[in-house]
C-alpha cells in the first residue's frame, strides 16, 4: 500500500529535521503512481501532487509518526477535503420536484432510479418513476419491474418524445399528489450531439430540482471528459457513483469532483434495490489510496 511504499522511500528520516525537496519528490513519485493506478485522471493527479509538494516540503519530521505516515496523512486529508466535506443531500423543494438521472450506457441509471425511489418512499415520500428510454430493448419493461420491486408507480407515456413524456408525467404527479418525479433516461455518450441536445431540451422544459450523473466507479481516464461534457451541457447537481461493491479503486470520483466541483451524493453498493448509500469522503479517500 502507499504507506509502506512511502516508508521505504523516506526511510531513515524519523525525528530528524525537515522533509527536504528531494525527500518529497521521491514521495510524490509514489503518490502519482498510486493515484494513476486508482484511475484518477493524469491531469488531476499532476495538480494534486503539486499541492501535496507545497504542503509537505519543509514540514518538520515528527517523532510520533514516521515520515511515510506523515506524508500519507497529508495526502489523505487533502483527498478527503477535495472529495467534499459534508454529505450533500438531495434538494427536493417545490411542489413536484423532478430528478433527472443521466449518464453513459450501462452505468446503472435504471437500477439507481429504483433504488432512489425505494429510499425516498421509506422517507415518507410518494415517488413516481418515469420511463423515457424508448431506445434500448426492453428498457421500459426493466423500469416497470424495478418500480414494482420498489413499490412505486411507473409512468409510461404514449408520446414518442422523452421530453413530452416527462411533461405528461409531471402533470400526472401533480394531480395525483406524487412527489418527487424520478426520470430514467436512455444511456448516451457525451459526444452524441443529438442525444445530448435532447437532454438540454429536457432540462429546459422540466426545470429539474436535481440532475444526477450516474457514473460507474470503474471508469478510467475518460471520467473527466464525461463529467465535463454532461455538466457543460445540462449542469449536473450531483453524481451517483455505482458498482462500488467491486474492487475498482474509484479514482473517477476525484476526477469528477476536480473537473465539475459537483458533489458525489450517493453510491451504489450492489444490484439489489436496497444497495444505495450516502457518500463518505473519508472511506473513498482510503479506497483510492489503496
Amino acid at each position, binding site marked *: 500500500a502507499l504507506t509502506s511504499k512511502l516508508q521505504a522511500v523516506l526511510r531513515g528520516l524519523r525525528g530528524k529535521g525537515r522533509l527536504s525537496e528531494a525527500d518529497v519528490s521521491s514521495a510524490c513519485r509514489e503518490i*502519482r*503512481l498510486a493515484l*494513476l*493506478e*486508482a*484511475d484518477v*485522471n*493524469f491531469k488531476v493527479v499532476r495538480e494534486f501532487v503539486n499541492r501535496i509538494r507545497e504542503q509537505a516540503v519543509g514540514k518538520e519530521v515528527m517523532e510520533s509518526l514516521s515520515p511515510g505516515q506523515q506524508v500519507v496523512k497529508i495526502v489523505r486529508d487533502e483527498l478527503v477535503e477535495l472529495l467534499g466535506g459534508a454529505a450533500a443531500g438531495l434538494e427536493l423543494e417545490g411542489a413536484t420536484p423532478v430528478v433527472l438521472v443521466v449518464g*453513459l*450506457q*450501462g*452505468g*446503472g441509471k435504471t437500477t439507481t432510479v429504483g433504488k432512489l425511489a425505494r429510499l425516498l418512499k421509506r422517507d415518507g415520500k410518494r415517488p413516481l418513476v418515469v420511463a423515457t428510454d424508448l*431506445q*434500448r*430493448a*426492453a*428498457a421500459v*419493461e*426493466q423500469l*416497470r*419491474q*424495478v418500480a414494482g*420491486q420498489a413499490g412505486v408507480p411507473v409512468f409510461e407515456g404514449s408520446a414518442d418524445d422523452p421530453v413530452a413524456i416527462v411533461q405528461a408525467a409531471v402533470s400526472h404527479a401533480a394531480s395525483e399528489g406524487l412527489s418527487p418525479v424520478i426520470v430514467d433516461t436512455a444511456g448516451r*455518450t*457525451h*459526444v452524441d450531439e443529438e442525444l445530448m441536445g435532447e437532454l438540454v431540451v429536457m432540462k429546459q422544459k422540466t426545470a429539474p430540482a436535481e440532475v444526477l450523473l450516474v457514473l*460507474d466507479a*470503474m*471508469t*478510467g*481516464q*475518460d*471520467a473527466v*471528459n*464525461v463529467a465535463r461534457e454532461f455538466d457543460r451541457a445540462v449542469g449536473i447537481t450531483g453524481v451517483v457513483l455505482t*458498482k462500488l*461493491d*467491486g*474492487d*475498482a*479503486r474509484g*479514482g*473517477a470520483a476525484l476526477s469528477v469532483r476536480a473537473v465539475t466541483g459537483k458533489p458525489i451524493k450517493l453510491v451504489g453498493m450492489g*444490484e439489489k434495490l436496497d444497495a444505495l448509500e450516502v457518500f463518505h469522503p473519508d472511506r473513498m479517500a482510503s479506497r483510492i489510496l489503496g
Partner: protein
Amino acid sequence: LTGPGEATDELFEELEEVLIASDVSARVAAAIVERLRAAAREGRVRTAEGVRETLRNQLAEMLSRHKAPLAASPPAPPLLYLVVGVNGTGKTTTIAKLGARFQREGRKVLLAAGDTFRAAAIEQLQVWAQRLGAEFVAHQSGGDPAAVVFDSIGAARARGCDVVIADTAGRLHTKRNLMEELGKIVRVAQRELGRPADETLLVVDATTGQNALAQARQFHEAVGLTGVVVTKLDGTAKGGTVITIAEEVGLPIKLIGVGEGMEDLEDFDPAAFAAALVP
C-alpha cells in the same frame, strides 16, 4: 540542439501521457516509452514522426502477439459462444450483434437467455431474437442459468441451428458465489457439448480503467477465456487497458463494439487500434 522534427524529451513525456490518458497502465506506459527512448539513444529512430511510427508498430505488435480468429468451424454443431463479464459492459447487445453477423453468413442462430437474474434481462434478449428472427431459448426468471445453456444446446441440435450464443448475468469478479455459478455454467455447457465452448468471450467496456485487468485475470482464472470484446469505442475512451490485458494475461482481443445497433461490431484490428491511440 534539436529542431522541431527531432525526438525530444518533451515528445517522450507527451507520448507517455497519451498512453496513460488512454488507460494504458502507468507501469506499462513507462516501459513502452523507455524502449522508445533507448531506440532514440541508439540512433535506431531519429525523428518525432519516426518515434510515433515506432510506437504505433510496437503497440500493434503487442496486440497481435496473441491474435486468434473467432472460432467458426466446430467439430460438430452447434458452435457455442459463451459471453461473460461485469455488469453493464454490453454483453447482451454484443450477443445480438454476433447473432446478426452469423445470420449474414447464412447460419442459423439460437440465442440463449442465460441471465436469469436481472430485471427484464430475458425480455431484452428476446426482443433481439425477434428482431433477428433467430431461435430463442429461455426459462423462468430466477431459474438455473446452467440449465438454460444445457437446454439451448439440445434445442440447437433439435432445430438444426449452427450456432448458440449464450448470455450470462453481469457479475463482479469479486463476488465469489457468482464466479462459482459461472464456473458451473461453463462445466455444464462443456459436458453437454462434448468439448469446451468454442468461444468464452469477456466483454470489457472501453471506458473502464485499470480494473479491466483484474476483470480479465479473474474471469480467465475462473472459467478460461478465449478472447476479449471491447465495447463502447464510439465514445471518447480509447480502451488502452486491452494493451495491458494482451501483455499481462495473454488474451486475444477479438472484436470491438462501436455503437448500439446490431451492425456496430467489427473485428479487432491491431494497427487501426494503435493508430487511433497515437495519432
